[in-house]
């Protein structure tokens, strides 16, 4: 015991907060002194410093004291005991369910006119359906948990590797993990079979990225490989407490009094898997629910659709209606009750509800009575039905639509949430990222500028587009030297095949190529010959640059942790090949704040050079002052030229370093690197010290190709009344050109440009340098621009056929325009524009713009993007769409829908979204109507019963009305109704505008349904009752109340079901089956119910009743008359509406009425004549869809710079680790082939 205490004292952190600055033994003494006074009081309660944990490797007993959590995880929501209470609690958080629970309780009291079953049966059926669904989902989770918990893993016990299940692992254990298996917990990486203590891990379960990442063990621990050696490891690990930050970790490993700082680079997270290494050995740091992955698996608050929020209002309106109905009844009952009705037995002792001496109490109690009686006005099964409909829409329609299946990347569309389907039908604003979304993210080295000279003869599509607009024709000739390769689309005989040596300045060319070959984080794979090699890069730009270097004769073929090997040809003589090894001393990584990447390398001859590449702004800031202005200016010109051609540019620069300077700097660098507090910030600061006085080499230009069908898609969407905003980090010229290329902007549009690149602003920036002053100037100019443009826009809009408007704004101006004082004018102006381009915007600004429109204009927004920088925007919009298939998956993980190509938006919005919206509107309004009609007949009866609250219908009628007799048809309509076919939906995008204007769920529409509901209930109630007064068969016998009410109920069921059929735009056999089936179900029910009398039957009033009823002509005559009269009103209305005030879709329907029913894809119509491609996609459609498996690892919010995090002022750090990517599409291909 005392030993551990000593250890504890020695290792518990210093008292000064979270930042451990470790300075060897001095720290230990200080820590000892500081803590010693506290230990006495602490006892064994919490021997851990709250900020840190201490782990003793390979020593279970020592760790026992702290009681770390076990490694078994449970992701289930419930267990056997909590399922019912917790599940029910979840259900009763819905207002409708809670209301029905209250009504059910109320109906057990004597004031209720109805038997409790009236309300209990529908409630329990609804609950049952929901609970079964919950239980099923939880069962699947339990199964996967058990599978995970019982996965075997090898753990070190008594100098041997023993296989035990994951759940038995404990903190401090030493485990061995084999290739391709998953890490069972968060591990400290000790040793690997690879040389240099490296291992590769795949993190797809964490962030969805399928690229490989490198981890490197501490050199000191490399040899703890074999069990005999590993069992001798008696180290302590001090580290932070479990937290959810995936990309940070600070800790120390203490072996033999030696303190070794541990970084995320030595951390292997649970959920990742080991690749390309035979096995690794690690010590467990965090287990089970304390692993970073599990700490991250919180639920993102789910989005609710606008329609559903409006539905809440409708439900509220129903509650108000219910209240007034009850109030009327209650007042009536107070007025009615009187002793003069002697037959009611109101003399003597009378219960309070009927006591005429206290009419007020009578009214109050009757209020509750009526509340239970009219409870059917609230559609209890509505939510369940909607959930089912939406679920099927997602799982069967959206996910399996062949029109949204991308065959090349084998990616179908994916609906990740099922509650936003109808939102897709109302989108008015689309916020789109550019790169990877509009463009293919297929980067090709296209042009470059070296030492002030432009190389590259190719013409971009955008240039061609511009030329076409200007009426110039471009001829492109291809030279013989052209090399076609992925990532390389460059042609210039001046550079190829070593020809560069004859250029004016071959030295600078050589620096250019070396920089390309050396300054990167690319990992070669495949083989060491130029043909076989494939490059795994963090971004396709990098791969393109390295590929370019290869083609220029600087073939990077191998990377070791400390060096890069380049096979250089044609340096001295033509055809001469030599291998050069550049020692990589430091890598200063790329991140979005630095916007540059540097490498310090040592030439074989000892020359120290820093190569740097990055955005033009940051590089130009850091150029040496005395460097020739000529190259600078020329290159800047070229940059602008490239930019306007839609190319992505990077500046390259280098700097020679002296050994003394380097040594001094390196010391600081190492210090920063081992600091445990603000490591990134310190590293950035240190990097600033060396990245200066750079010499510009030139710049590269990479083409980012447009995706297929983007211009057409954008045109279609804008015809549909959707406004598309492009938010991009690119330069203004690039952005505008891309906007032109994808027909977002054209020459007939009036462009408003708000730019910070005006002379006035630049002058202020250059001269004063005072940030406050600069900001004020920019803001003023932005304000002036906004006001001026706004006036102009309003003027243009007033004229009848003015041009359409487009707004272009850059990030700096946007920052000021988003200021509260200018926000309103920005919003006004931008809402008048049909397309808006924001360039140079940060991820946060993307989200701000999105929420500006979402909150400010209250329009429905959709964000689409592919990368981590779009996550905040995707989360901020009503609907987030991620691009799946190619790159990393952060955007997909944060999105609600994932599609593979931008053009699939047409199908997603115009077909699926529109249909979902139409169907949901129909379902909701119909639900509203059918419950109102039913309840109103009951309400009218109340007037005839002295407001006593006598029920009109039998308990079972009322309880089964919602769940059996009218349940199925409406679901069928929610699934199958379609006004016009998918092709026509896309042919007439204007139809979509009805959704944007919310034409089908306005209060006016609801009011029309309500009006006809009142009309129908009056017809049904009155005709039934008035015509039933006299004797109705030849024996002159009179019907009683229950006969009449059964008659009325039959009419309600028939009418309501037929009304649904009238509301359908297309009627399939499923419609018929469900509608006639429901009516039949009622008759079957009533036949059995009135035909069989059981001893425990509550009352005999229903017995034989139907047979009596059906033996009269009255029954048939009324049954024929009443539904017809009831539906006559609707019919006339529909006819008039269609004739005089048609909806757009109705016009289109008529235009295409005589078309042959065209099917969306004819592959099956021709039977077995399928092309291989079609057959393949058909097979895919038929395959059981691979469920997104729940692994316990998936989490929906990537640790990336989240909009919400930054809103709350939480610093979300960049990924520090070295990134080596494997192009995900590739690896997928391989695996699916395997």
């Amino acid at each position, binding site marked *: 015991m005392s030993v551990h205490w000593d250890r504890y004292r020695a290792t518990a952190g210093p008292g000064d907060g979270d930042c451990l600055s470790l300075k060897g033994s001095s720290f230990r003494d200080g820590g000892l002194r500081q803590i010693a006074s506290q230990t006495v009081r602490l006892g064994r309660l919490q021997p851990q410093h709250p900020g840190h944990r201490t782990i003793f490797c390979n020593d279970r007993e020592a760790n026992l004291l702290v009681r770390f959590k076990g490694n078994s995880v449970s992701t289930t929501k419930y267990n056997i005991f909590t399922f019912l209470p917790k599940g029910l609690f979840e259900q009763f958080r819905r207002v409708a369910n809670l209301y029905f629970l209250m009504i059910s309780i109320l109906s057990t009291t004597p004031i209720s006119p109805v038997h409790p079953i009236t309300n209990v049966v529908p409630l329990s059926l609804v609950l049952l359906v929901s609970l079964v669904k919950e239980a099923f989902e939880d069962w699947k989770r339990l199964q996967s948990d058990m599978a995970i918990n019982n996965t075997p893993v090898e753990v070190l016990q008594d100098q041997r590797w023993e296989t035990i299940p994951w759940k038995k692992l404990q903190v401090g254990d030493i485990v061995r993990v084999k290739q391709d298996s998953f890490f069972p917990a968060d591990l400290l990486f000790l040793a690997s079979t690879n040389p240099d203590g490296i291992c590769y891990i795949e993190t797809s379960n964490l962030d969805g990225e399928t690229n490989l990442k490198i981890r490197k063990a501490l050199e000191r621990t490399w040899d703890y490989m074999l069990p005999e050696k590993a069992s001798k490891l008696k180290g302590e690990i001090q580290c932070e407490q479990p937290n959810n930050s995936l990309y940070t970790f600070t800790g120390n490993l203490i072996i033999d009094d030696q303190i070794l700082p541990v970084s995320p680079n030595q951390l292997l997270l649970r959920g990742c*898997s080991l690749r390309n290494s035979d096995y690794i050995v690690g010590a467990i740091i965090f287990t089970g629910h304390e692993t970073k992955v599990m700490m991250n698996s919180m639920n993102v608050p789910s989005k609710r659709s606008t329609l559903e929020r409006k539905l809440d209002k409708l439900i509220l309106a129903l509650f108000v209606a219910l209240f007034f109905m009850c109030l009327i009844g209650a007042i009536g009952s107070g007025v009615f009750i009187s002793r003069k*009705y002697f037959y009611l037995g109101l003399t003597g002792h009378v219960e309070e509800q009927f006591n005429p001496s206290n009419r007020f109490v009578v009214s109050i109690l009757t209020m509750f009575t009526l509340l239970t009686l009219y409870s059917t006005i609230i559609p209890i099964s509505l939510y369940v039905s909607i959930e089912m409909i939406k679920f099927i829409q997602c799982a069967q329609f959206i996910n399996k639509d062949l029109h949204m299946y991308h065959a090349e990347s084998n990616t179908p569309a994916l609906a990740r949430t099922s509650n936003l389907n109808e939102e897709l039908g109302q989108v008015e604003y689309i916020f789109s990222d550019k790169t990877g979304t509009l463009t293919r993210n297929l980067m090709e080295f296209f042009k470059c500028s070296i030492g002030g000279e432009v190389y590259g003869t190719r013409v971009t599509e955008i240039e061609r587009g511009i030329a076409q607009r200007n009426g110039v024709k471009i001829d492109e000739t291809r030279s013989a030297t052209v090399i076609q390769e992925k990532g390389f689309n460059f042609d210039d005989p001046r550079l190829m095949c070593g020809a560069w040596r004859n250029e004016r300045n071959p030295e600078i060319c050589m620096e250019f190529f070396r920089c390309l070959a050396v300054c990167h984080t690319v990992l070669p794979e495949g083989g060491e010959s130029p043909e076989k090699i494939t490059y795994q890069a963090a971004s396709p730009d990098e791969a393109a640059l390295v590929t370019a270097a290869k083609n220029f004769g600087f073939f990077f073929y191998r990377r070791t942790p400390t060096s890069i090997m380049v096979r250089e040809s044609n340096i001295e003589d033509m055809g001469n090949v030599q291998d050069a090894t550049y020692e990589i001393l430091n890598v200063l990584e790329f991140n979005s704040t630095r916007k540059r990447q540097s490498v310090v390398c040592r030439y074989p001859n000892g020359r120290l050079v820093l190569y740097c590449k990055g955005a033009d702004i940051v590089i130009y800031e850091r150029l040496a002052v005395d460097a020739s202005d000529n190259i600078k200016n020329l290159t800047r010109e070229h940059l602008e030229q490239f930019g306007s051609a839609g190319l992505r540019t990077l500046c390259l620069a280098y700097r020679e370093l002296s050994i003394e300077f380097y040594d001094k700097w390196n010391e600081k660098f190492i210090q920063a690197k081992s600091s445990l507090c603000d490591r990134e910030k310190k590293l950035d600061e240190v990097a600033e010290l060396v990245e200066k006085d750079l010499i510009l080499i030139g710049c590269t230009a990479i083409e980012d190709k447009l995706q297929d069908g983007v211009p057409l898609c954008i045109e279609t969407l804008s015809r549909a009344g959707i406004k598309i905003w492009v938010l991009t980090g690119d330069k203004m010229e690039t952005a505008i050109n891309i906007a032109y290329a994808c027909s977002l902007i054209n020459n007939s549009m009036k462009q408003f440009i708000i730019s910070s690149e005006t002379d006035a602003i630049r002058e202020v920036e250059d001269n004063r340098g005072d940030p406050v002053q600069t900001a004020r100037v920019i803001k003023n100019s932005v304000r002036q621009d906004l006001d001026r443009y706004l006036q102009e826009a309003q003027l243009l809009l007033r004229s009848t056929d003015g041009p359409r408007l487009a707004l272009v704004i850059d990030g700096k101006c946007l920052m000021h325009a988003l200021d509260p004082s200018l926000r309103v004018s920005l919003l006004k102006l931008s809402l008048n524009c049909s397309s808006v381009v924001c360039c140079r915007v940060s991820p946060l600004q993307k989200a701000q713009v999105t929420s500006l429109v979402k909150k400010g204009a209250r329009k429905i927004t959709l964000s689409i993007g592919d990368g981590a920088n779009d996550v905040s925007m995707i989360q901020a919009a009503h609907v987030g769409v991620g691009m799946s298939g190619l790159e990393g998956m952060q955007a997909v993980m944060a999105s609600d829908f994932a599609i593979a190509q931008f053009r699939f938006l047409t199908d997603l919005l115009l077909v699926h979204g529109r249909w979902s919206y139409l169907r949901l509107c129909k379902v909701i309004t119909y639900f509203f109507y059918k419950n109102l009609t039913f309840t109103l007949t009951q309400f009218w009866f109340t007037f005839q019963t002295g407001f006593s609250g006598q029920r009109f219908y039998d308990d079972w009628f009322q309880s089964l009305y919602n769940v059996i007799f009218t349940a199925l048809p409406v679901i069928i309509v929610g699934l199958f109704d379609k006004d016009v076919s998918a092709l026509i939906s896309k042919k007439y995008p204007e139809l979509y505008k009805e959704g944007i204007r919310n034409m089908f769920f306005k209060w006016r529409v609801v009011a029309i349904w309500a009006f006809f509901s009142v009309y129908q209930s009056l017809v049904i109630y009155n005709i039934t009752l008035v015509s039933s007064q*006299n004797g109705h068969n*030849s024996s002159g016998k009179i019907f009683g109340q229950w*006969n009449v009410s059964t008659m009325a109920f039959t009419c309600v069921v028939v009418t309501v079901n037929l009304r649904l059929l009238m509301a359908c735009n297309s009627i399939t056999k499923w419609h018929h089956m469900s509608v006639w089936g429901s009516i039949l179900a009622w008759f079957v029910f009533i036949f059995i119910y009135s035909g069989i009398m059981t001893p425990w039957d509550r009352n005999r009033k229903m017995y034989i009743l139907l047979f009596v009823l059906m033996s009269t002509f009255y029954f048939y005559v009324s049954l024929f008359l009443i539904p017809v009269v009831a539906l006559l009103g609707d019919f006339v209305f529909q006819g008039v509406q269609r004739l005089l005030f048609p909806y757009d879709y109705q016009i289109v329907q008529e235009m295409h009425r005589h078309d042959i029913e065209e099917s969306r894809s004819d592959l099956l119509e021709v039977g077995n004549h399928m092309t291989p491609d079609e057959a393949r996609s058909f097979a895919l459609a038929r395959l059981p869809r691979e469920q997104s498996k729940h692994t316990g690892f998936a989490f929906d919010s990537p640790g990336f710079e989240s909009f919400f995090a930054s809103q709350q002022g939480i610093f979300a750090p960049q990924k520090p680790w070295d990134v080596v990517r494997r192009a995900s599409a590739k*690896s997928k291909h391989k695996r699916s082939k395997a």
Partner: protein
Amino acid sequence: MEMEGGSSLGSGGAVQPISFPSWRQRVFYKFTQQNLSACKPALSPTLVITLFLLMGIAFVPVGLICLRASENVEEFVVRYDIECIPENYRGNKVAYIKDETISKRCTLSIKMLNHMKAPIYVYYELDNYYQNHRRYVKSRSDKQLLHGLQLNDISSCLPVESHNGLPVVPCGLIAWSFFNDTFTFHRKALNLSVNRKNISWKSDRDHKFGKDVYPFNFQNDTLVGGGKLDPSIPLNEQEDLIVWMRVAALPKFRKLYGIIEEDLDADELLTVHLMNNYNTYSFGGKKNLVLTTSNWLGGKNSFLGISYIATGCCSILASILFALIHVKNPRPQREPSCSVWSRKSSSR
């Protein structure tokens, strides 16, 4: 293991050899691609006009048939609740009806208007009588009516469930307020027999009222609601009670009293001797005596027939209106130029 597949969406997409899709797969495929064959009932003007016309053509004849059937029924209604009160009590009818010492005998003379063919049904009709009041409706025990005294739980019969500690059979307000006016008919001083048998639903007699259940302790309270029952006759033979106990749906209702099985001629004088026992005066209820014949459609009921005819006429009218609108103001079909969006965009 669970995690294996999670990394790639498409790992299930490996191409399998295609077999010819089965019928089920085709249906499912059509389902997922939302291609189910469907008919599209668009309410075009022609369709609307035709439908209305057809409906009118179908409904008017049915209505005429119903109306004619109803016309064929002879119905004779006479109100007697006022006339049967002596002049001096007209000011205080309630006192009259409650005073048991006064004889309630009353005589009405009816002159038949038309010939009535046997069987002639005799109804009494009450108005403003809330048989459907909640307190009233639930104050009965169906089980007791069937099983009699064996049944102890008669709490549903409150407030008339027991008297002097003994249960009441039949219990409850409905039975307690049993209608007890009686009618006898005379024709030229001869007694016209009224058949009082078989006036209730057979199902009620057989299944709802016990054949060995006898009235017990009935109307023994100080407060007497209505008629008394002969304790020696089982409930299933007390047909008046059975009719009474089938509660009416509306406050105005008829109940069958008996059947006259002789024809009545036109202009014939009929004398009705009635005992005006039942108190409807306290709540202002009317009492009518109804004589009616019946046919296949039941009693006199012109409402259904008129409804049919009205609906049919409305339909025809609507079809004419639609036709007029359609002819005078035809919306050009198959022409996208009239589409709403083009109108709107041109106005912009």
